[in-house]
């Protein structure tokens, strides 16, 4: 089995995945204008300010959109199809990309309440994933 595609992490990108390793889904808040943005940047996308804090999100949100893959997007995922990618609107006001787990394809829907979980996909890489709030949905 081939390994998951592993990003080359540089600078602030590292901080995001280091915190994921610690079971935290982080986002940034600008101390100057209060704007929020998902992944860490060195500037605020609203005011170009640099006084940014990296904060753990609650991990709660709803599905903004989803797609179920019936062909693997990478050889490492061939045994996993079908699997579902989601955009989730977190209650903190940022939109994040991730995978939906514990939900059969037919039950995936826009508006579904979800919470974050974490998957250690390699020795160095932990990915945030999303599960339905209130527990796994059965494939029936």
């Amino acid at each position: 089995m081939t390994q998951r595609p592993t990003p080359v992490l540089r600078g602030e990108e590292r901080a995001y995945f280091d915190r994921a390793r610690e079971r935290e889904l982080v986002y940034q808040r600008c101390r100057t204008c209060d704007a929020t943005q998902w992944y860490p940047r060195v500037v605020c996308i609203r005011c170009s300010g640099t006084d940014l804090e990296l904060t753990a999100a609650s991990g709660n949100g709803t599905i903004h959109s989803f797609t179920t893959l019936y062909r693997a997007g990478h050889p490492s995922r061939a045994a996993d199809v079908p699997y579902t990618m989601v955009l989730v609107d977190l209650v903190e006001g940022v939109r994040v990309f991730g995978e939906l787990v514990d939900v059969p394809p037919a039950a995936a829907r826009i508006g579904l309440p979800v919470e974050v979980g974490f998957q250690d996909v390699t020795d160095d890489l932990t990915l945030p994933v999303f599960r339905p709030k209130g527990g796994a949905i059965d494939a029936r």
Partner: protein
Amino acid sequence: MRGEVAVVGISEIDPFESRGRSPVGLMAEASRLAVADAGLRLSDIDGLFTASSVYYTPSLTFAEYTGLNPRYSDSTVVGGSSFEAHVGHAAAAIRSGLCDYALVTYGSTQRSDRGKLVSQAEWLPYEQPYGMIHPISPMALIAHRHMHEFGTTSEQLAEVAVSARKWALRNPQAPYRVPLTVDQVLASPMISSPLHKLDCCLVTDGGAALVLCATDRARDLPRPPVYVLGFGESADHRNISGMPDLTTTRAVDSAQRAYRMAGLTPADIDTANVYDAFTISLLVLLEDLGFVAKGEGGPFVASGAIAPGGSLALNTNGGGLSYCHPGMLGLFLLTEAVRQLRGDAGERQVTAATTALAHGMGLTLGAHATVILGTERAL
């Protein structure tokens, strides 16, 4: 800028399968043919505009391969919209005297390369580790959102592919010579829901080129000049999570800029060539370009509006869905627009077409460039 620069030469080469040519070989052959179409020689070209997904510095690769020594070059890469952007950039460069004869060129062997190791130049650290299919999965996220907000259906999306095939049947260069039905699109394998295989563009090889110069020079050349009447660009995201609104794109802005410069409205456009990498991306763009109101794209395409005989003569060569999509389609949108305005489109000719729009989009609807072209009568 309106009417100050014109397209004077075009070409397409091997739009399905390369006949033994490398990507730069396709660029070179297309360029040779386009320059000849313009009544020029390659040595007349002093401005070079190109983009590539295989060459890191395509203007250098091309210059060395052809012996060209341009005094101005621009290898702006904004995905499939690069070539519409190049037209605007070339017009600006010509106007300011930085070059006299501009060549826009592209070549790809994406079909012949299938199954071979493709270099991964750039990683998207926050999305790629999940193993999504780029760009199909982001487009599928857009499709589900459009369905949720506006009630768009898979049947309506399939109509986009069906209309494209109807046009392709009038194009002798198009690869598939049989009609397509909605049922066939829906029965094709689901790749990334709700998008089926036949909601996606073809994977082809192909090369194309286009030559531009100032209007006064253009009038001395053999082919009827096709004038650049309007141009606009806009861009906003690389990751799908960074797309501010999944159902409205910056094509709204690029088109507005182009229409304003041209002094035209969507109703004035005789034929349009709009990037159709996927059925859904075309549907969203038809709304954003003003051909139909936001959210009404589904019923619009289902009514036959974009098929031959419909209200909008769209992608008359069959587009990326049914003619040619060699990695990036942008240049082929322009060559078809020029062909229509010259009256050279054969069985698919739009009667008395004097204005044409070409809209390129890049990646997952993240980059946009709109070009409006016209004949002498539209000036």
